[in-house]
């Protein structure tokens, strides 16, 4: 009963925060609402005994992704009024899609009673059970090959991104490190002999 109450409270905060993301006029505020959304979801995951994933959600999404979001929002200087112009125009389509999603969720609830294996409740874990250990064993034990493949996928993404953005352009300013290191005193400092000036 207590769990249900906590869940209800968190769900209310979550929905409010999510609404805040899409209705706030200022993109920075929207990003802040998104932080609250992620943090609340993380607490919901704690309720499901997924402690490790909850912490990862906070660290990765709130800590890294949202900071990146804020950087982008501030660097791009998004014009909030222009971005919001389509709100009423897309509202109809948006509500249709929302209705479909709600319908799908209801269908899923209905499917729960039709003999699929998902009707089994989640088994409670014994005390001292460590999520982190289990995930680590799966990731670096049973699925180490997939893990390495994902690593190569990331390397590929880095190579591709650098190849597409880093190129020689006329007028490009960059540091030539070896020229900086090789510079001698004579190149930079010029000793000028001049007669002492007298104040008369």
């Amino acid at each position, binding site marked *: 009963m207590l769990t249900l109450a906590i869940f209800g409270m968190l769900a209310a905060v979550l929905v409010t925060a999510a609404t805040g993301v899409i209705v706030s006029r200022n993109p920075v505020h929207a990003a802040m609402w998104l932080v609250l959304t992620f943090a609340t979801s993380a607490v919901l995951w704690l309720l499901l005994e997924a402690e490790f994933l909850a912490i990862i959600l906070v660290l990765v999404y709130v800590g890294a992704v949202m900071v990146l979001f804020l950087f982008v929002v501030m660097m791009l200087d998004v014009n909030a009024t222009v971005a919001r112009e389509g709100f009423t125009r897309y509202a109809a389509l948006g509500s249709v899609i929302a209705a479909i999603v709600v319908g799908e969720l209801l269908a899923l609830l209905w499917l729960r009673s039709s003999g*699929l*294996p998902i009707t089994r409740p989640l088994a409670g874990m014994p005390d001292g059970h460590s999520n982190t250990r289990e995930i680590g064993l799966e990731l670096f034990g049973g*699925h*180490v*090959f997939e893990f390495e493949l994902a690593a190569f996928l990331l*390397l590929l993404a880095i190579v*591709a991104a650098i*190849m597409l953005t880093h190129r020689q352009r006329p007028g490009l300013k960059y540091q030539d490190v070896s020229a900086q290191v090789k510079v001698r005193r004579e190149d930079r400092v010029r000793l000028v002999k001049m007669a002492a000036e007298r104040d008369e």
Partner: protein
Amino acid sequence: MNAEIAAFLGACLPEVVVGAGICVVLLAGLSGRHGRGLAYLLTLATLAASAWVVGASQPEAVVSMPGGSFVQDPLSRFLKLFVLALMAAIFVYARAYLRERRLETPEFYVLGLFALLGIFVMVSSMSFLTMYLGLEILALALYAMVALERGSAPGAEAAMKYFVLGAISSGCILYGISILYGVTGSVLFSGVAAAIEPAAVGQVAVLVGLAFVLVGIAFEFGAVPFHMWLPDVYHGAPTCVSLLVSTVPKVAAFALAFRILVDALGPVQADWQLLLTVFAVLSLVVGNLVAIVQTNIKRMLAYSTIAHVAFILLGFLAGEGGLPSALYYTVIYALMAAAAFGIVILVGGSGEADQIADFRGLNRRAPWFALMMLIVMISMVGVPPFAGFYAKWWVLWALVDAGQTWLAVVAVIFSVIGAFYYLRIVWLMYFDEGLNLPPVSAALDLRVVLSANSLLLLGLGLFPAGLLELCARALG
């Protein structure tokens, strides 16, 4: 512990070699002025090393990774050796193209090797998870390569389209996989097949998952109605990348289709055959009819790809007996497409020869390569004694054997219609005066590999049985 590592490496040694090659080529690219040449040579060395690793293993042995998600079996070995040979030829063609245009960067070779790694992973996958990762590695490498030429607006447009549509298809296939996993509780192909074998639990959900996965497969092949990206990508990408996109990913797509449809979803064969029939017939119609009105040879080859893909799908429709013919068709198609794009690169010289009109009077400019193009085009039509004939013949034969005669009739009718646009190029090369352009010149390696590639189509047409035997043995 050592035994575990040995078992692990035994099942993925070729991939480890390619992965190590990627890192080495990436570093070699940094070595200043000689970086490109060094990267090229090391790339070829990587191909040779992994070919040696694949070739040195027992041809009939099935080595599985602990957990069963990855395997070295006869099919994966056959496809890997073929892809390695094809990739070597592609790198030779691509280097000639890139050097003429001062586009050569070490990253091209790195991305090419990444694409190879993706294909290797796909052909050896025995689980949805590894298959999806391989698919993503391949796709991401191709997106970046399409945008290789930064200044080109069609290139950027093609890359954007490919990326967005690819992301959607990737989402579809992932959604399908998640449904299948939800229903069967396994990502292993064998586990999925075992779970849906009794055909009692969650049939509807299996079919929904199947439909989404099929969308991904059709996109990968470029079958109608998921073919939209193909003409634009072939057209907008640098020709050497069009060459890459049109050949080896189709081999990977064959593996994707075979492993998922036959290994994992074999129990619901009747259902996927229905959808695949629709894709195949639509591809035959759209590919052959739309190709006729093209004026750009890269777009024409794109629609020709769609028509050829229909034949590969028809091989899947002919049941168990059709699979070797589908594999044979994939191999022959990849060889034909590589040669066709190779000749487009060669004729282009330092410019572009992407209009069909650029082939006018080729016989006077380069009689030998006009003859090679003749071989490729006639082979694509499917005239004996060229390899394309036997490829079509065996697919049709398997269809008739499986009692799908009407599909064979449709395929023949549209192939005859399709003959027009291949023969038009032959006509332009030999019977059109053309402009007074200088003779075609090209590097020796390009000429040698291209000639070998085209003559192989004649050779395989004269002695077709060996390769078909290999295909049948690869599929066990």
